[in-house]
């Protein structure tokens, strides 16, 4: 057997071993895995297409502009082959987007829609204005599918990597246009409307007395508006939105129930939230869900505050802490 064959065989066995010994509870549902993979390809394709189109528009008509929009290499294959897509943040955002989509679809399919966003659009002043931004951000995100709504940081990183890859098959004049196109697109990415921040803006301006919060959260989940529900939960419980979205997606965590209590959501509405999530996601352990609910109901204020302390840290600090922990355990991200 040649060295190349031996290397291939070793790589195959190594990959199969990783798959074989992966814990079931760490394994992504197949559908989410496929969706996340499609989103990752979509994100790279969107960055590449935007760069090529913008750079071609910056070039005078002619062979250089034509070559810019005629891909010679696969940017995805190149970035993947060099390991540049194996970024912790990019992976986390892509998988979270796929899981949120999946949960939203399952919740919507249950037919409990109340069109909370429509009611917010009917409201006066800043609430209607924030709701309008939210529906436009959601329409923009849906238009961009399969690319996920990445954070500006991830989008910018991807744009520069894609630009560097495209540079390999264009001439120096075109490469300069590519650089300018990337700069412009990075500025636009930083300012782009995204559903997450738009939902947070709605949650900030909605006046929700504690006794109305449970119903609003339940309505948002019934509509499949998971990002809006996460924004409400974050605003009312003092945690950040990404953390709140993570709690709604987690399968067996008491933290969601602590956060709901901290948000002022009553026991009855907490149970409705539990029922919605259990129905939408068959992987949730019903026993763990019930005992988590009961434990959170019985917990005192100090216990709840301690449980949520980490989630109340600023998002970048939690990211840094997680990175520190990964490096400490020897993995790279």
């Amino acid at each position: 057997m040649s060295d190349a064959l031996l290397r291939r065989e070793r790589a195959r066995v190594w990959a199969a071993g990783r798959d074989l010994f992966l814990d079931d509870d760490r394994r992504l549902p197949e559908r989410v895995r496929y969706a996340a993979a499609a989103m990752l390809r979509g994100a790279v394709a969107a960055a590449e297409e935007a760069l090529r189109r913008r750079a071609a528009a910056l070039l005078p008509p002619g062979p250089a502009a034509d070559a810019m929009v005629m891909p010679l290499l696969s940017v995805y294959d190149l970035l993947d082959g060099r390991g540049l897509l194996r970024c912790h943040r990019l992976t986390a955002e892509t998988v979270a987007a796929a899981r949120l989509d999946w949960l939203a679809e399952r919740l919507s399919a249950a037919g409990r829609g109340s069109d909370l966003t429509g009611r917010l659009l009917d409201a006066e002043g800043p609430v209607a204005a924030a709701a309008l931004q939210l529906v436009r951000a959601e329409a923009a995100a849906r238009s961009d599918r399969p690319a996920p709504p990445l954070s500006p940081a991830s989008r910018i990183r991807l744009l520069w990597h894609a630009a560097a890859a495209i540079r390999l098959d264009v001439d120096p004049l075109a490469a300069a246009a590519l650089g300018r196109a990337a700069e412009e697109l990075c500025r636009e990415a930083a300012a782009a409307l995204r559903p997450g921040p738009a939902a947070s803006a709605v949650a900030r301006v909605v006046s929700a007395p504690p006794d109305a919060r449970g119903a609003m959260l339940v309505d948002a989940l019934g509509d499949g508006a998971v990002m809006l529900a996460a924004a409400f939960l974050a605003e009312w419980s003092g945690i950040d939105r990404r953390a709140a979205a993570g709690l709604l997606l987690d399968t067996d965590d008491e933290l969601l129930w602590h956060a709901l209590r901290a948000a002022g959501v009553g026991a009855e509405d907490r149970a409705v939230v539990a029922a919605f999530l259990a129905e939408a996601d068959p992987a949730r352990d019903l026993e763990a869900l019930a005992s988590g609910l009961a434990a959170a109901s019985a917990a005192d204020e100090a216990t709840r505050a301690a449980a949520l302390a980490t989630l109340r840290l600023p998002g970048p600090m939690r990211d840094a802490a997680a990175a520190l922990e990964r490096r400490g355990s020897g993995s790279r991200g």
Partner: protein
Amino acid sequence: MMPGRTPGMEGWISLDGSGRLLAGDAALLALNAAAGGGTGRELALPALDVVAQAARRIGTAVTRPVTLGGEAGDAVLIAEARPAQDGIRLTLSRPPAADVPPDRADEWPWEADAKLRLRFVPRGLGERYGFDALALVGGPLTGLFTITDAPDLVEGKRSFGARRAMLCGGRPVLVRGGAVAGRDGRFLGYRGIVLSPQGVEGSADRLAELVRALSAPTLRVVEEADALRMEAGLAEADWRRADDMAAAGRHLMALVRERSGDAADEAGDPAGGMAPVALLAAARRAAALLPAGGPAVAVGGAEVVAAGDERRVVQVLLNLLSNAARYSPPGEAVSVRAGRTGPSAWITVADRGPGVAAADRARVFERLWQAGAADMGGSGLGLHISRTLAHEMGGDLILEEHDGTGARFTLYLAASLAP
């Protein structure tokens, strides 16, 4: 033009680190030789050489379309060059089929809420026709389009078929909309499609072509079946078969006549009369039109009423049942179930045949697509037409993913507002 094999070829060649030809399949070697090249020399096919050079320079796989000439004319092929251990391996293949079926490329979805505010329209529609589509989201639906001959049509909050409309910016298009109802029958909004006139004209041409092709043979089938029924001394079983044939033929003729009208008036109202349709009853009517001797059709469960056009619903179910019957193993029944999920009513036709291979799932609704051997019968048009009919009623037809054996198709329609 270079001599050589018809350039629809697929093949491979390998080059050393300096770009000299090492080996390859016979056809590509012959093509290269005809262009003046040979083993141990640089590639004589410039289009392929460019791709190979790029892969060597960049150090990763490079794929691009290339045009090669041959005795039968030019052909566009896909060349992929991959760095190998000792040089470059280059393979040629045929281009894949387009991702988007051509007759769907000019369709753009839109959604509105109960207050007729536009809630979704893809950014691409605006980019195509020169306006900012996202800026219209949240505003009145009439900001996106106005139905030309009935500006107040959407106020009726009922499904409507393709109608001439004026898109934002003054471009004429066709628009159709399906009313979405809640569990309690409340109007929740619209889900619809904007069709560019170009796309619609194309589909109208195809429809007219199909109608012309179907009219004469359908009439002939009915006449023959009627004549057979009149024959003296016909056995009971044969008479029943002839009766089935005549009934099925008349049903098809009614559809052909109706579609002739659609084709003649491309901007007509293909949704026809939307009314409450009992789905299981429609399935029983469709099952009665199947030829005798096929698998049993088990229609079970509680009746569900959808908003649709009864004749179209029966036609879709007849197509699905015929399809299921064709692929069902002997002795296995085809099962039909119906239900409601939120604002939608659905009916599923499931068989226990070989199912649809994962690779084919995305293509089953394409025109002329057929699973397995061609001798299974069928025109390859049934599923394509069925999905078109479902869309015309503001619904959808999908191939379900499931773990069991067989294929499972589900027709989704808005649940009826009627009790």
